[in-house]
């Protein structure tokens, strides 16, 4: 199952791409993730995740037009594939299922 396992960070990246819809490329994904999680995401880590997701077939990408802000280089826009969406759903289902089965008692925080 190693090939299709979805890590926590990869899951976040996938979701972010979905959130950003048409404008998901390296810099925006990083900014979005950074601002939402409050974590400082390294560019390298992000690209590692993107490469892995691509290898697993969860995302595809295509080049957009060249822009001046990138020194004349094109943006690579990412899209989540169907299998990507499916993997996300599976992951969410698994979590929902687990949440639903957590006994109420253990959710009460100590001291309440």
């Amino acid at each position: 199952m190693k090939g299709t396992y979805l890590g926590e960070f990869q899951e976040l990246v996938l979701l972010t791409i979905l959130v950003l819809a048409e404008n998901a490329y390296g810099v925006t994904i990083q900014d979005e993730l950074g601002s939402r999680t409050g974590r400082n995401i390294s560019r390298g880590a992000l690209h590692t995740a993107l490469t892995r997701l691509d290898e697993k077939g969860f995302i595809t990408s295509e080049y957009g037009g060249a822009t001046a802000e990138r020194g004349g280089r094109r943006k690579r826009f990412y899209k989540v594939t169907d299998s990507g969406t499916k993997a996300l759903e599976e992951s969410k289902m698994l979590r929902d299922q687990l949440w639903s089965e957590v006994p109420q008692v253990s959710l009460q925080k100590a001291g309440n």
Partner: protein
Amino acid sequence: MNQTIQDHKPPRIPQRFLRWYCKPELLEDIEGDIHEDFNKRYTRSGKRHAHVYYFLDVVRFFRPFVIKKLFKTQNRNVMFKLNTTIAFRHLAKNKLYSFINITGLAIGIAACLIIAHYVIFQLSYDKFHDNADRVYRVHNQTFQNGEDLGTGFYSGYALGPSLIRDVPEIEMQSRVHPYYGGAVVSKVVDSVAVTPFREQDILFVEPAFLQMFTFNFIQGNHNTALDDPSSIVITESTMRKYFGNEPNVVVGQVLKVDGGWANGHYRISGVVQDFPANSHFQFDFLLPIKRVLMRDQYTEEGTDWGWTNFYSYVMLSPQSTEAAAEAKMADLMHQYIPEQLESDGQKQVLSLQNVPDIHLRSEVTGDEFGAVGDIKSVYFMVIIAAFILLIAWINFINLSTAKATERSLEVGIKKSMGALRPQLMSQFLTESFWVNLFAIVLAIGLTYVFMPILSEALGVILEVDMTNPLIVGALLALILAGPVLAGFYPALILSSFKTVTALKGRFVSKKSHAFTVRKGLVVFQFIISTFLIAGTFTVSRQLNFMQNQDTGIDMSRTLAIKGPDTNVSFASFEAFKNNMEQVAGVEAFSSSRSIPGNGYNWGTEARRSGTDRSNNGTVNVTWVDATFLNTYGIEVIAGRDFTEAQRQARNGMIINEATVKAFGLGSPENALTEKIILSGDTMAIRGVVKDHNWQSLHKAYGPAIFLYRFASADFFSLGVNPQNTDKVIKAAEREFEAAFPGNPIEYYFVDDFFNRQYQEDKAFANIFKAFSAFAIFAACLGLFGLASYSVVQKAKEIGIRRVLGASGTHITILFSKRYLILTIIANAIAIPITYYGIKSWLENFAFSIGITAELFLVPMALLLIIATLTISLQTIRAAMANPVKNLRSE
């Protein structure tokens, strides 16, 4: 917002780096992202910030998934494998050649590794203290009437506290007072002192000493260990010495210290780990300085700057600099004792020296406390290491190019099959790589074998540590650089053959540049060898000279006994003296406060009576009794020896010739009419003795004065009849124990004792010997290899000469000649270099052998003999071989 962001040029070097390593399919994407961020940062926080982050981004992308295959052509790996196979076959085919090559290189590298260990050790002194960078020793430079008298570190006890008071940069200070003369220390069990040992390394220090330097307390409290004036801190090895190998807690146990400075009982308040060997001072016991300050000697009026028996360490506060502290302390002594310094015509300049610098770069010009290294000897070792490595590499180059003829066919065929020059070069470099690699592996083994032997010669125990980053770095550098440095030239030569001539065979003309370079390299090797042999020869001659030189003192027949530290009453002294004088074979008995080779008792100032204080000069004083000069055979050239019939003051002083000269007393006879003011006391001159070597022959004769003392307990000297030596020693042991119970006896013949001063010189000579042996062996290996190849090449010529009637001797001479000429040329070039080296080394000695032709001729002759033997091994065999064998095959 996007409109406000302009496009800027990113820094070039990181950009190029990124483009170099990044997979092409990812490049546009990644570079674009980084660039976009760069532009944003540029607008937001400025150019600098943006540049820094651009660089960081590039570095952070240097990850496996981004990096393209930098060595992408599979072909190279295949070629490397193939070249390796060829190299192995070639090495296996020429076993002698491979052996010489690999051994020579391995020896060179091993020598370098060993020297590297030594150098690392020398450079590591005192770095183990956590605060090493801000702990300093206080030095003082003395000028008299503007003349620099040198730098020392001894000062009065008032200096330490005034430093803390007047120099705000100084955070802590500790005065140190060595336990001069040593003491007998014993363990007190049930109020009885047992296991007495004579101890030398005892220091009185302040509590701050424990904070400034890094001590690892095994027992006891680091912060309070020396607060109580009756506490004592000992080292772990001292603890084992007194309490056995498996002691329980020894804190609280009592030690008795007897030696004259601060006798009494001390309670052990701490046990610290021994200092490592790379410390500029060592100790076995630490005592609170309060104890020694209680002595009358230091409590009397006016002794605060007078008794210069102390030295000080200080620790600066973290933010202050050495220069700032020095500026404030330079003329500190002139604030406290201006009148005294002025009337002496002296200027005292205080300065600091960082503790890790003391070992190799001590600013102190006189005697150091403990043995001190010298940065020059470290440089010297590095040069020797470089020489040996060079010799080894030259061997490799020579042997490889000498084999050129043999491999011409191989090269020719490869070239005609279409091999390009770079491919051929990579083949020979691969060969070089493997030879170097084998050599390094062998060298590591050799290092383990030779290190114990050589570390003994070096006088320091060194452990092989192959994990030291510097050693690892050096090995990596050797693995990478060695094959290229040593292999490049042969590869260039071998791959340069013209295809057709190479295939034809005979191609190396006698005038080819390969041969001249080779000759040049052999000459260079022999220059180094001559230099090292001559050096070795000079060093051992000088050492021999120093040990056998007539010092003006009769030492070989004099047995010295170190006096007792405890239970010395005049009665027991008298008893010992009388009993010893009765022993058959004892021809003289003398007591004194010091003996030759042990230094002087007191360095002080003196001047001729009738002159003023600015004429003060330094003199060294030793107290002896009336039989001393006689026992040691020191010749009195004017006046008389001391006599027991008179009191101390009436006996006056006996001076040496150097004193006569230094104070302008005229002739020795005339000096008897003069008086000398010694440290304020005017004294008559009773006699003049011939100059003699009281100290090692490194030092010139200096003004020295003997003062009379009826009886001293520091040293007893016995003039011994050589036939009765054993009996005298037995008697001395018996009588010493009877007279001074509880004192371990320590005795030696004075010549042995005197020669202990040359330990460092001996170590130096040993190093020189060991490494010149290395160098000569490596050079001879090279010569042997070269000769053997030239013989193989000329096998036919030899055969023809033999058939036509040449004698074996004739052929041997013919073939040895050219190498002998090379060694002679090398010798000629080596002479001036060697001359300079020998001359500057001998300048370290006030008494030296001087430079004679012999120092050059003997090494040259030796080298010629060694070279001839090496070559003859080959040429004689060739000359004696049956010529038919060599001529038959075509």
